[in-house]
């Protein structure tokens, strides 16, 4: 199960330490691996085969800051950050490497050509025609070769190897920047506690919460809870008007409205530092 660490890109421009960045994953195999680890994330890119809708999207996969932090802190992933990774990779690109890329493309074309020729000949044979390739059909074939814009980057992959992003100091610094930039720092403790209980979590603003919690993969299971932004266990009063609207919301859609309190004094909080309460309309009054 424990394969190599998954690279997570932090989208944030160049040398931008004050902003945390947006955590994204570009490789489909990595996305599959994350799903098996209990991270659904949100697909954010246009799906080329159905480019005029928003229900089904494609790579990149966007992760919540809390998810990315969890993955990195638990040694499942590491961050790559900064646009200079790309720029530097391109500037140090050697002629040899360019040639290599070209050759790769040529090979890809050759494969396509071979495949298409076989298909073409099969068709001709079916029709009982000569299997000789005519000039026009040859140029037709050439113009129908496919040029792909890949999801993930060879440039970055090379750079990452050389740069050794995956070292503790860099990762710690990036985690710190990401955490400092979160609106409600307590949410990370809440996230960790729910993750520890095996829940799949999604962003929940649309549904009136910080997170939506699913008992398993959201592809197959209904969500169980709308989790509120973390409260301070000792000091924050429960907003009763919000309890009313939260409870009412949940009744229609079979979801509990969950509040979580984080104890103030625990800085390096563990899971025990979070107390959960689940609220629903009592069915009368």
């Amino acid at each position, binding site marked *: 199960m424990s394969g190599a660490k998954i690279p997570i890109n932090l989208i944030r421009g160049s040398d931008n330490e004050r902003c945390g960045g947006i955590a994204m994953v570009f490789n489909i195999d990595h996305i599959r691996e994350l799903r098996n680890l209990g991270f659904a994330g949100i697909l954010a890119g246009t799906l080329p085969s159905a480019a005029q809708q928003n229900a089904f999207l494609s790579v990149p996969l966007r992760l919540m800051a809390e998810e990315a932090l969890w993955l990195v802190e638990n040694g499942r992933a590491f961050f790559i950050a900064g646009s200079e990774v790309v720029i530097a990779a391109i500037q140090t690109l050697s002629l040899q490497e360019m040639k290599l890329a070209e050759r790769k493309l040529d090979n890809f074309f050759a494969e396509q050509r071979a495949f298409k020729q076989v298909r073409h000949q099969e068709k001709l044979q079916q029709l009982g025609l000569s299997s000789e390739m005519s000039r026009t059909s040859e140029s037709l074939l050439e113009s129908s070769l496919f040029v792909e814009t890949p999801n993930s980057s060879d440039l970055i992959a090379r750079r990452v190897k050389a740069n050794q992003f995956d070292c503790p100091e860099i990762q710690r610094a990036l985690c710190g920047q990401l955490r400092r930039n979160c609106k409600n720092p307590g949410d990370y403790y809440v996230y960790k506690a729910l993750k520890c209980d095996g829940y799949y979590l999604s962003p929940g603003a649309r549904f009136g919460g910080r997170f939506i919690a699913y008992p398993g993969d959201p592809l197959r299971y209904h969500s169980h809870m709308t989790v509120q932004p973390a409260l301070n266990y000792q000091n924050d009063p429960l907003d009763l*008007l919000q309890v009313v609207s939260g409870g*009412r919301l949940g009744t229609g859609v079979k979801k509990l409205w969950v509040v979580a309190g984080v104890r103030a004094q625990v800085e390096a909080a563990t899971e025990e530092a979070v107390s959960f309460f689940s609220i629903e309309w009592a069915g009368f009054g």
Partner: protein
Amino acid sequence: MPKYIPNAKQYKHPLPIHPLDNLPPLISHNPLSWVYWLYKYLSSTNQLAVNIHVELSSGKHITVADPNEMLYLWRNGFFGTAQLSRSEPTWRQRTLARLGEEDSPQALEHVTQQRRLQRLEFKRQRASFEETKLSLRRQGVDESEILQQERDFLKSLRDREIQLQGQNAVSLRDSDIELFDNEDKLKELEVLELMPVEAVFLTFALPVLDMPIASLLASLCGSRPTYDEIHELCIKYAAYHHYRSHGWCVRSGIKFGCHYLLYKRGPPFHHAEYGVMVLNSEDSMDYTFYSSIARVLGGAKKSFILCYVELCESQDTVLRHWNAGRFDRVFGSYKVGEIMYRRWVPGKNRD
């Protein structure tokens, strides 16, 4: 069976202070009619003959106990909430019906109760079917077979529901004996409670309750309050007065998680179309605050209004007016503005 009175007649007046609508006709060529008119005009008053008696308890509970006065406040602008009913006082009638004392039609609450009980029963059935389904799956029964069974089960539920409609029962508890006084008459347990803003409106803006405004406000906010102690009441009242005075029937929005609901005329006539949240003009809440209220109100087909109240004077000035008893100046220092909050669905806004 009471005679049916149409709503428009029963709730003729939108406020408990009535206009002088029984003045004699003015006839231009008959000066005598002018004199008579003037006499009637001067001798009439909008004031109530006797103001309505309220009790104040624990600082903020303002209640009306007299059944006629309760009814008057309800019928003339829909003020107050009967504590044991949903809005209009119906507890007495309901209780008599429940105890089989009176042959009155079932009050709304009773019907709702019955329906809820039935629903609970069906859910119970549903749960037991889920267990059957699980065991079928464990036995490796084909998914399509399970699906078919589920359909049959749902159909049987629906049939039963149709059958059960119309049935009801009378329930009696030991404690119900205590509801009757020595003469075996039902005690008047229900009182009408006014929201503080309603009580302020009915003393300060309209002379309806038998209580001086200064002592009401002192009871709500303390006798020498700081600005912070009066602020929330002031902005909520400014908003309340704003909507009331523009003709809305304003009632508590607690069941929808907001401050007020706005009715055109009143609950018997229309559903509330707007849910209002009263905010300070510099308030900025977490997004979940807005989105959850918007979803609740949206589910009830009500528009969500963010009512912003801005203080246009210094806090000291307001407090000075407060202490001088110039509450018109206090409330007049606030300015109200509205923003409507609506979910926007791009796909439905393309043409």
